[in-house]
Structure formats: C-alpha cells, structure tokens
C-alpha cells in the first residue's frame, strides 16, 4: 500500500478536471440504452396486470400473433422453470424462482404492473398495439397495500410457497417473510429507570428512485446460442449473473455491454427486461429492444419501501441516551426482500447507546417488488430516530446538535447490530454543523403570511467494498488506457483515473478511461453502495502501483541496471545512483520498444468493508399556514467524505441526495387506491422537486480520511438522502410547534396537523 502523506499535497486529487465522458454527454453523442441501433432491430412491448392481486386463469395471444409486423410473443411459461435458489449479485442475494416470477408471472400477479406477457414487432407502435390485443383472464383477489393490512388477521396471503423465518421459527401461511431481533444489554431495565422516555410511531409511503431514464434493454440471441445484451445498468456483471441464472445458462454465454445510464440510485441493479428481450430474440431471430413507459417504471420496477417504524429512546437526567428500541416493518412488495436488514444497521448508528433492541419485519404487500434506493432502509429509520432525538433534546432544553454530540457514535462505538466502528467522522460533521454559517445565522424573515423554522438531522450509511478490477495499458505517447467495469453514473471514470494519475505522477488528462463490457473489462460488482470511487479507485491504485513496478523493470533493461537500482518519484523514473539517468513517464512510454512488449498492468480488489459515512443537514422551511405549502428557504449539507477526490462531483452527490430526500419528505409517495393500484403513475402526480422548488443547496465537505483506503476515500453517494426527512420534520416542528410522524409532510397533512382540516 502506498504511503500517502497526511499533508494532502495532492497534484490531481482534489482538483476538478473536465470529466472524460463530458463532451459526449453535452453534445448528445453519448449512447444510452434506448439509443442503441442494430441492423434488424425490432421492438418489444410488455403486457402488465391491471389488477393488484389475482390468479392468472388464461392468456390468449392468438389475436396478437396474427397482426402484421409481429415477430414473436411470449408468456412467463417461456422462461425456464426455476427451483428456489439464491444467487449473489453483489448487493444482496436474490431467490431466482421469485425473481423469475417477478419478471413475468406464471401463476399469480402480485401487483398492478406485474408483467404477464410480451410481444416483439417491427416497431414500437405495432408492438404496443399487438400487446393490447393479448387477452388475459384473471381471478381477482383481495389486495393489501400496507404492512398493517398485510399482517391483519385474515389478510390475503400473497405467496403460498413462502415459509417465513420468524426469529428462527418456520412459519407458513404468512405475509411476513422474516422477523429478526438484535439485542444488546438490557433495554427494558434501562427504560424502566430512565429520566425521559419518548416512543413514537412513524409511517412512510413507498417512493420511487425517479431516474429520468426509463429502464431499457436490447438483446440478441444468436445462432451460436450466445446472448448479447445492451442495457442501461448499474452493473454489467450483475446483469450477466442474473440473466444467465434466470435463463439457466452459463455466464459465459451472456455478454453484457453497459451503455450510459440515465440514473439508477439502486433501481437499475435488478433485471426486468433483459430476460424478456432475450427470449423474444430467441423466438424471432432478431435483436429486440424494450423501453419501459414511465407508468411501467412506477408500477413494474423496484421502488423503495414504506412501512411503519417505532422508535423509543430514553435519556438519563444528564441527557445521555441510555436505551433505544425500534420495531421496523418495511414493505417488500410482491416478493420478499425489503431493505429491512440495512435499516437495522443504520437506525441507531449515529448514537452510542448501551442498551438496544431492534425488531425487523420484512412484509410482502401487493405493490411492485421493492429494490434499493440510495441507502436503502436508512432514510426511513433516520426520519424516526432523528425526530425522537429532536424531541429528547428539547426535553433537556439542549441544542439539538449538542445533544447529538453528547451521544455521538465514534471510533470504538458498538453499533446496535454488533459492528464496532473504525475511524468515522460523525463528531467532526456535527462540530462543523455547529460552527456553520447556517446554524449560527438568524432565521430571517419569511415572506408575508409564512412562518419559518429550522431543523437539523443526521444520517448514516455503512457503504460497501466488494470486487472491482482495473486494467491499465500504456500508449507510446505517454497516455494510459484505463478499462474498468463500473458503470459511470456521475463522474467515476474520472475519479477513478484521478487516483491512478496521482500514483503515477501524471495528469488525469492523459487517461483514456472506459467502462468495458463483460468481455473486455475485468469483473466489477455493481455501481452502488457508494463503492465505486472507493473500491474501483482502490483497484486503480493497485494497478498503478503494479504499473510502476513493470516500468521499473523496463528502465532496468534500458539502462542495464538491476531493478532495485531504479527509483520512482513524482512521475519520474531514475537510477538511484545516478539521478541524471531519468525518464519522465511520457519519455519512458515512447522508449518501450524492445524492452519486453507493451506495458500493461492490472489491479483487483475484494474489499470486505468500507469506511462508513455520516452526514448532518440543516434546513430552514417556510410554511404558509393557510395552505400548508412548504418551501425550503435554506439548506446546508454537511458530510464526511473521507477524502474528496473530485470535489465538484462530491458536492454533486451531496446536493443531489439531499434533493431526493426533500422530495421524499414533502411530496413523494405512491398514492394507493382502494383497489390496490397506484393512482399517480406519471411525473405529473408523482411530484419530484423542480428547479423552482429549491434554493441553492450549500455543501460543506468534511474530511476524516478512511484508513482503509490509500487516499482515505469514503463512499459519498448514499448518505445525503438519509437526513432530509427528519431535518424537515424537525424544521416544521420549529415553525409550527407540531410534530410530524407521517411522511410525506405534504400540504394536506400540514393543514390536518394544524387542525385546519380533519381529513
């Protein structure tokens, strides 16, 4: 491991070069999944259930098949039969049998939007038309669309084959896929003797990642029985793993080319379309493309769970938190696998609590199967914990930041689920928040008719490490080709190259980075878990270090010296005994003929852990008490990023995550109708913030380098979505004197809490 000096006198790291893929992206040249063109390409259209819960009685595709321009039709029966088995695609495991049912149902539909059939035709319009002619008969069943209804006596059971694991006990005939408990110390005893106890029940609604680019996939199943897939994905290798498993093929039969991706946030990890277009391609002999309509994205992809969360915390008379307890019920959607496990890891992570108990329930409901959304599970529990912490702080008449500082988790603190924190920046971030201009400035005057309040909240995400590979090749002009397998969602081609550039002592403009496909790049796990700059960057560092050794060998040959007589510093190779004998990187690159072949290197990592990240947000809200309209007057994001490799893009993650959290807090939700279907399936009524809904988002970078990374990098992408909901709830309380325990804190709810309306 390279010893990087703490003085942080980096040449490349901490700068903001133009990103390498920038020119293509601002000119419209960059190819995203839906832009793919292939000879003979035809289009697919998916038939989806209009019912939230039903048995499929019959599917009649005969009329569709007769339509001019239709090449093939398929149903779930065209997917191979699967037994229950679990595959690991890097960010969790999936049950392949259920994944297959989710991709196309064979027996039951479990949510409106659940795919049941598909058509491939000459163009999109014919495909849509033919899809409308496929007749599906259903036996409609009662639907449950929240965790309370799904666990009531007599609730319809979604999955007959589901055997719940309830604290180790196998339970049939249930919608509760799992119940876990983490316990440490004696929470009941501590609660009984505590000075202040606050227990609150919170509800949150399902929300969607909202990426502007809908899901897409193009596949060609060729004459050699190999499948080529082009898709916008957060990970080509996980797509390969999943698709191969779902189609019961060896992974080497599937080649996945990741195209540029228009946002993912966790929602473009699971496959939805790839197996479908593959089968349609096999049946038609043509390459087949599918692009989801926006309403299908809402109803047929993987939103984030809502649920019911109870948090109970207690303090002694000196405001030390003595006990914390939580019950976390999250909706998994139609199949098990909500983010409840991660929620357990995060719920009390920001606090040093000696006695804890956390119960977690993974509950199936008639909604789309939930998937990861930026720190999955953490924003939900942060809403609960940060509100209760705010209540306790006020009971002690304490500044809410001081209350958090007093109880702050730090290095050596045991997280409630057992992990002991290495060096983390929770305290540093809180102190920066306390010193910040925002926290120390007057509230100011809101617009006429409004009241203003200020709130603060923290959040945590553990981040992940996992596997990445980076391959470097030296060009004769001193430039370096860098091939890696991590989809670039927001500038990581460059942040990865910057780390290699720093090691090699050359400018990052000398790098030509690319995201390879599964046959040109070395294996990489998903771009997610805030791991890319961290882990793939680490692999780039290793590759760069290897490259230095390779090039030292070449110098030795050129100068007829022994390898251990060659030194490297600041981008220059020189003979230790005769420093006049030297090459810059560029000079050496042009002198490599007859030294043993083209110079190249590889670095690969499999990181078991990552540096966790903490963030604290401060928000001022203005509320029109007559209408319940809330505007964000001022917003500050503070976050420990370890070391900011590419600061402009680090700030971008901070602001972007915060804005998603603001939308989540104020307006976003799946509005479910009585028949179990979602009403707001368009961007018109699924209300995400626009430019006019926000002020400038101030970002304050705090750096507590992660000792587990050569440059101290901590993942930055996810933690910024965790604090906003709690921060806004606390700000609303400051403005209105009322607490909010239900999200979203939309205008109608505010009017209701204020007593202006009763519905």
């Amino acid at each position, binding site marked *: 491991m390279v010893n990087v000096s703490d003085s942080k006198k980096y040449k490349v790291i901490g700068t903001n070069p133009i990103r390498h893929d920038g020119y293509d992206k601002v000119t419209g040249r960059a190819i995203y999944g839906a832009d793919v063109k292939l000879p003979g390409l035809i289009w697919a259209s998916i038939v989806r259930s209009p019912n939230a819960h039903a048995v499929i009685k019959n599917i009649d595709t005969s009329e569709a098949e007769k339509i001019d321009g239709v090449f093939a039709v398929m149903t779930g029966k065209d997917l191979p039969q699967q037994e229950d088995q679990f595959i690991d695609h890097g960010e969790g495991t999936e049950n392949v049998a259920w994944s297959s049912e989710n991709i196309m149902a064979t027996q039951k539909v479990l949510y409106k939007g659940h795919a049941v059939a598909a058509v491939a035709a000459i163009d999109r319009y014919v495909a849509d*038309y033919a899809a409308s002619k496929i007749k599906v008969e259903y036996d409609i069943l009662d639907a449950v669309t929240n965790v309370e209804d799904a666990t009531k006596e007599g609730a319809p059971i979604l999955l007959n084959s589901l055997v719940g694991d309830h604290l180790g006990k196998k339970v049939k005939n249930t919608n509760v896929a799992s119940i876990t408990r983490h316990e440490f110390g004696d929470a009941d005893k501590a609660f009984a003797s505590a000075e202040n106890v606050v227990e609150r029940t919170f509800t949150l609604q399902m929300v969607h990642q909202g990426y502007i680019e809908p899901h897409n996939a193009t596949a060609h199943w060729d004459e050699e029985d190999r499948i080529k897939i082009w898709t916008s994905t957060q990970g080509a290798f996980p797509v390969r793993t999943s698709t191969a498993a779902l189609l019961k093929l060896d992974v080497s039969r599937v080649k996945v080319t990741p195209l540029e991706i228009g946002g993912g946030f966790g929602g473009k990890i699971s496959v939805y379309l790839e197996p479908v277009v593959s089968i349609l391609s096999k049946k038609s002999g043509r390459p087949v493309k599918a692009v989801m309509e926006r309403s299908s994205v809402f109803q047929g992809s993987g939103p984030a769970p809502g649920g019911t969360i109870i948090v109970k915390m207690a303090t002694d008379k000196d405001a030390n938190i003595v006990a914390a307890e939580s019950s976390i019920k999250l909706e998994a959607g139609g199949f098990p696998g909500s983010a409840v496990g991660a929620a357990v890891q995060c719920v009390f992570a920001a606090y040093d609590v000696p006695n804890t108990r956390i119960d977690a329930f993974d509950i199936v409901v008639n909604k789309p199967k939930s998937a990861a959304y930026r720190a999955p599970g953490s924003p939900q529990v942060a809403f609960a914990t940060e509100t209760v912490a705010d209540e306790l702080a006020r009971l002690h008449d304490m500044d809410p930041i001081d209350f958090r500082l007093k109880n702050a988790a730090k290095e050596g603190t045991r997280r409630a689920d057992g992990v002991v924190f290495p060096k983390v920046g929770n305290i540093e971030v809180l102190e920066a928040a306390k010193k910040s201009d925002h926290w120390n400035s007057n509230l100011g005057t809101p617009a006429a008719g409004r009241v203003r309040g200020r709130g603060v909240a923290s959040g945590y995400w553990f981040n992940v490490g996992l596997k990445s590979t980076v391959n470097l090749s030296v060009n004769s002009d001193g430039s370096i080709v860098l091939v890696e397998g991590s989809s670039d969602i927001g500038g990581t081609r460059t942040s990865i190259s910057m780390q290699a550039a720093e090691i090699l002592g050359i400018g990052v403009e000398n790098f030509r980075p690319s995201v390879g496909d599964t046959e040109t790049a070395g294996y990489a796990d998903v771009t997610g878990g805030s791991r890319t700059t961290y882990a793939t960057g680490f692999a780039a560092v290793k590759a760069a270090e290897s490259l230095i050794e390779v090039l030292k060998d070449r110098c030795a040959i050129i100068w007829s010296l022994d390898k251990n007589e060659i030194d490297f510093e600041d981008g220059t190779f020189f003979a230790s005994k005769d420093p006049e004998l030297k090459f810059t990187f560029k000079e050496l690159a042009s002198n490599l003929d007859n030294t043993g072949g083209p110079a190249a290197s590889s670095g690969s990592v499999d990181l078991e852990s990552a540096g966790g990240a903490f963030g604290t947000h401060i928000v001022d809200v203005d509320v029109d008490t007559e209408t319940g309209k809330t505007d964000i007057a001022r917003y500050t994001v503070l976050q420990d990023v370890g070391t900011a490799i590419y600061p402009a893009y680090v700030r971008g993650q901070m602001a972007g995550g915060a804005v998603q959290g603001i939308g989540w807090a104020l307006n976003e939700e799946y509005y479910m109708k009585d028949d179990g279907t979602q*009403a707001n399936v368009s961007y018109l009524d699924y*209300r995400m913030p*626009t430019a*006019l809904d926000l002020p400038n988002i101030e970002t304050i970078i705090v750096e507590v380098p992660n000792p587990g990374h050569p440059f101290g990098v901590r993942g930055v992408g996810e933690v910024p979505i965790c604090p906003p909901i709690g921060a806004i709830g606390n700000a609303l309380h400051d403005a209105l004197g009322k607490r909010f325990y239900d999200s979203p804190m939309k205008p109608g709810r505010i009017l209701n809490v204020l007593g202006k*309306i009763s519905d």
Partner: protein
Amino acid sequence: MHPFAYAAPSTVKEAVEILTKHGDKARPMAGGTDLLVQIRGGKFDLDMVVDIKKIPELTEVTSNNEGIVIGSAVPCYQLYDDDDISKNYPGLIDAATLIGGIQIQSRSGFGGNLCNATPSADGIGPLIVHSAVANIQGESGSRSVPVEEFCTGPGRNALAKGEMLVSISVPNKGKGFGSAYERFIPRNEMDIAVAAVASSILVEGGKISEARIALASVGPTPIFAKKASSFLIGKQANEASFKEAAAIARSECSPIEDMRGTIEQRQHLVEVIALRTLNKSLERIEG
C-alpha cells in the same frame, strides 16, 4: 394506441368538413399537449387528428377597445409576450403563465384548455370571470356560448358533432375592473391545481357593481360561483365583504377526494384562495 391520420387544413370550413365527416373519430389539435397524452393513454380511439394551427385566424389575437378575440390555437406565450394584453388582462396572464412549464406554454393555449374541459383547467375560471364567450363554428353555421356554459361534464363540452371552437372573445371591462387567478399546488410549477379560484370585480365609487368568482378542481366542471358572486354586488370592496364571499364560495364547491387532495382540504383552500384573489383583484384596480 389506435393509429391515426393527420390533416392540416388551412380554413375553418375545411376543418369543419373533416370533423363532420369523421364524427367522434376525429378531433382538432391545437397544442396537442392534452390530446396526444389522451390518445396514447387510450382515452380516444381516433382515425384522424386535425391540426388547426395552419388556419391563420385561429392563431391570431385581435384587440381593440371592445376587447380581445383569442384564436382557439393561440398558445399561452403569445398572450404573455404581448405587453398590452399582459397589462390589460393580468387575470388571464395569471393562468397563461401557470399552465405546465415553458415548453407546454409554447404550444398549449386557452382554446385547447377550454375544449379539454377538465374540472382543474387553469384557463377556464379566468375566462369565466372575464365574461368570456366561446365562438363556435359547425356545418350549420356559427354560434357563441358563454364560457361558463361550455363545459358540460368532466372532459365534456358543448360542441356538437362537426363543431369546433374558433375563438374566445374577452370583453374589455374598462377602468375599475380587476381580476386575479390563483391555484394551490404542492410544488411551485408543473402541477395540476388541487383547488383554484378566479375572481373579478368591477368597482365604481368604492362599491362593487359586478363580481364573478369561478372555482376549479372542486366539482365535475369549473364552477361559476353564482351565490358568492351575486353576494358581492353592491357591497363595499373590502376585506370584510371578500371574507364573506369566500365563505359562500366554499359552500358552492363539491370536491372529491383523490390523489391530489381531500374534500376538506379543497373546501378550505377555496375559501383561502377566493379571499386572496379578491384582494388581488382590488389591488390591481387600485395599483
């Protein structure tokens, strides 16, 4: 989506011929921002879409001392980019700058908004309170309908087979007239109104001689709140009268609960916004 053909006639006569021939299998298209979404969503199965933007008089606004006549294909931006119209008809401009975002306002206009006849339409309330009149042409000739009678149900209008809207006449009410439109939306743009109110008053010597209040998103069609409106006649133009009128307006709405709002929320908002728009109307007269 049912495949449809496209026609772009250059006269109203031609357009009416096509519409009459195809009946409910053809619809005129102005900005297309509602129609195309509805066709794709399966609301209509059309054989023919009739683009009316190549008919010169439908894309013109004519104005004189009597008032303005807005062609049915005139987009919103054409109104708010016009300094005179912006100055003299601010209550209409309130709506023109609110329908969708800039991209939508480049295409959509009051004509399509009126014909689309949704209860939440931003343009209809302001037209009602300006005493606007819809000018219709069909095979059997032309007729005019006050805007408050144009919408007959959610998404349904008074046009008979083969008829089309050619323009909207908005009278100039002269000095002493003020109007305003406000809607409540959860974001700051791009939303459909949860509840909305358009108000107008004509004040002479401090007393209200004419008043119109229209409500949107709180009934099956935009509602001309006749009771609240007539209450104001003869009253002093002040906060007290406006408050009472707003309370009456509240009683004239019949909202439902849906994904955009609850019943009480909408009733409450009608009262709040009615007061605000009446105050604003008065400000515009005085300022």
